[in-house]
């Protein structure tokens, strides 16, 4: 990973009308062939970030570079070429595929837009369907004739059709049944091995993100609060919000950290660190500024005033990440 990242977003900020600061100061990089997971709860800005990377939204400030070119300044042929190399698999295949087009036509639509000729399309579409595990005879079917898992495969085939280098998967497996979700996750992994595609994998499902990602970024209230290798983040979270998220996954038997209150209004965020109003380890200093991301371990950064939030300086909260002594019962951390 010493070479220049393929996708490099620096300091992205986006404020919507009404003063909703959806994203502020988010920086992310994605190297060729790797997977970066983004997790966070609804409203944390993960989809807004993805849209800025895809140039579906213009950031207020900050930049996105793809292979050295500024994504938001590209025009004409160069922009088209970017779109070919940077594809997306959206969340809901039922709504992202035109119900009135045969599946082959949906895939062909994307290819035609990028200049693939009729002969290439006719040859590639059956190959693509086969590649995602569908019988090529499906090319003639309509979306309503397929199940959700099959449609998601078609959406993947459509994204692959233009031979992209980066695919943004925005909750791409969230709508699928678990037994089918595993099939699609394996497919994405196989395609990465074979074709060297890089994924930006956005999901609220922590277990799925940990499984598929090399690195994971955790977002809260429009900012990245922690980023690091997937496994390290899971085993040894360095931001209290990450620890809380992990403790909330049911059935793992981690000691539950229950958050006080609700997500702050993004149009009127608290002063200082946005998480401090709900944070079990908040101290006075948290009210002044949102801490910068600082290095905690190799390739692992977190934005918290505590050098190690698991052992806060003034240990008044006692809400560290337990080792599961209370496994199963889980309710020990009190009611909200």
């Amino acid at each position, binding site marked *: 990973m010493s070479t220049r990242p393929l996708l490099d977003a620096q300091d992205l900020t986006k404020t919507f009308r009404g003063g909703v600061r959806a994203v502020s100061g988010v920086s992310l990089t994605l190297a060729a062939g790797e997977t970066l997971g983004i997790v966070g709860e609804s409203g944390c800005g993960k989809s807004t970030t993805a849209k800025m990377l895809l140039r579906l939204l213009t950031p207020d400030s900050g930049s996105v570079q793809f292979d050295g070119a500024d994504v938001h300044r590209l025009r004409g042929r160069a922009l088209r070429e970017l779109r070919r190399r940077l594809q997306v698999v959206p969340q809901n295949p039922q709504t992202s595929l035109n119900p009135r087009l045969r599946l082959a036509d949906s895939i062909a639509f994307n290819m035609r837009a990028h200049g693939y000729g009729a002969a290439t399309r006719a040859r590639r579409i059956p190959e693509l369907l086969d590649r995602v595990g569908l019988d090529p005879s499906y090319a003639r079917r309509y979306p309503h004739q397929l199940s959700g898992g099959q449609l998601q495969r078609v959406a993947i085939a459509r994204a692959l059709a233009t031979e992209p280098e980066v695919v943004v998967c925005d909750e791409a497996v969230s709508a699928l049944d678990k037994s089918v979700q595993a099939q699609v996750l394996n497919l994405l992994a196989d395609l990465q091995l074979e074709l060297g595609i890089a994924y930006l994998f956005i999901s609220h499902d922590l277990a799925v993100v940990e499984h598929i990602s090399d690195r994971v970024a955790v977002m809260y209230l429009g900012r990245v609060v922690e980023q690091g290798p997937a*496994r390290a983040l899971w085993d040894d979270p360095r931001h209290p919000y990450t620890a809380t998220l992990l403790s909330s996954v*049911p059935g793992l038997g981690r000691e539950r950290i229950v958050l006080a209150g609700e997500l702050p209004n993004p149009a009127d965020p608290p002063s200082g660190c946005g998480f401090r109003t709900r944070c079990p380890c908040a101290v006075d200093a948290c009210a002044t500024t949102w801490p910068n991301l600082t290095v905690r371990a190799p390739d692992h950064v977190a934005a918290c005033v505590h050098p190690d939030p698991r052992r806060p300086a003034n240990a008044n909260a006692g809400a560290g990440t337990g080792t599961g002594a209370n496994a199963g019962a889980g309710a020990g951390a009190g009611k909200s």
Partner: protein
Amino acid sequence: MSAALRISDLHTTFGSGDGAVRAVRGIDLEIAPGGTYVLLGESGSGKSVTARSILGLYGPAAKVTGSVCLGADELITMAPRQLRQVRGTRLGLVPQDPTGALDPLRGIGAQLGEVLAVHGLAPGRAQRRAAVLRLLASVGIADPARVAASRPHQLSGGMRQRAVIAIAIAGEPEVLIADEPTTALDVTVQAAVLGLIRDLQTRHGMALLMVTHDVGVAEELGGTVGVMYAGRLVETGPAREVLRDPRHPYTRGLLASLPVPGVARGELRVIPGRPPLTGESGTGCAFAPRCPLAVASCRHRPPPLVALGAGGRAAACPVLNDEPVAKELVS
């Protein structure tokens, strides 16, 4: 002790003749007062239809047969007017989507008050108002007066779900049926809502029937789990034992296909194919087309649930009862 809810041989069929969709095909289950039963299954397995059939929500749209006993009362044959009184007082429902369950044009307090009024739980406006605030406070809402005055869109998803839970428990039901109550919520909110449901269950001694697709939720709640596939229970038993040591090939496949955090990455094991659509039927075991253990006899008739040992566990798989094969499976 008699059961709070006892269901035997429940069948729910939509339509008739060739187009009949047999969504539920013979469910038996029993929940003790204060007990927990988790119906676990994927979409189309019939778990929600089971819950709605218990509540008698289908009316003439479906043919529901079998027996649903709430305490000593049979609900299947109960007159609609009487059943309406049972729902909301003795049976509570927490639906999946709190937004759809609430009237967008009316305040939360008015909607909660309506339930109290309809069931004669708090006669008089002042008393009703007090009961509304008390109920909202009991589901962990910090400022009940503000929430009571709010319309649904002014509240977060978690708050709306709390309000819906308040409505469900207004009549202090004997049995609370929760149909995927946390699926639409973020994990931290889900954790809080599950904690709340469990807390209310202990406080009021309610029996809980939880419908979920989330293995984590099932593991967390404990109690008894019933794994559904294509309208039938394929495996039942104490939740933590079943989920730790599944026996039915479907349960095994389902659990194996989940990513386990912190364990080496690699291929996830998958169940080939896809679950059958609601009511899609064959003659034999519905899982046979995807099953690694299927033998010829599996395709002839659906296997019944058979006890596995004395620990209250059962599975519907004849291959498991075949000693040598079962041994090989366990090893």
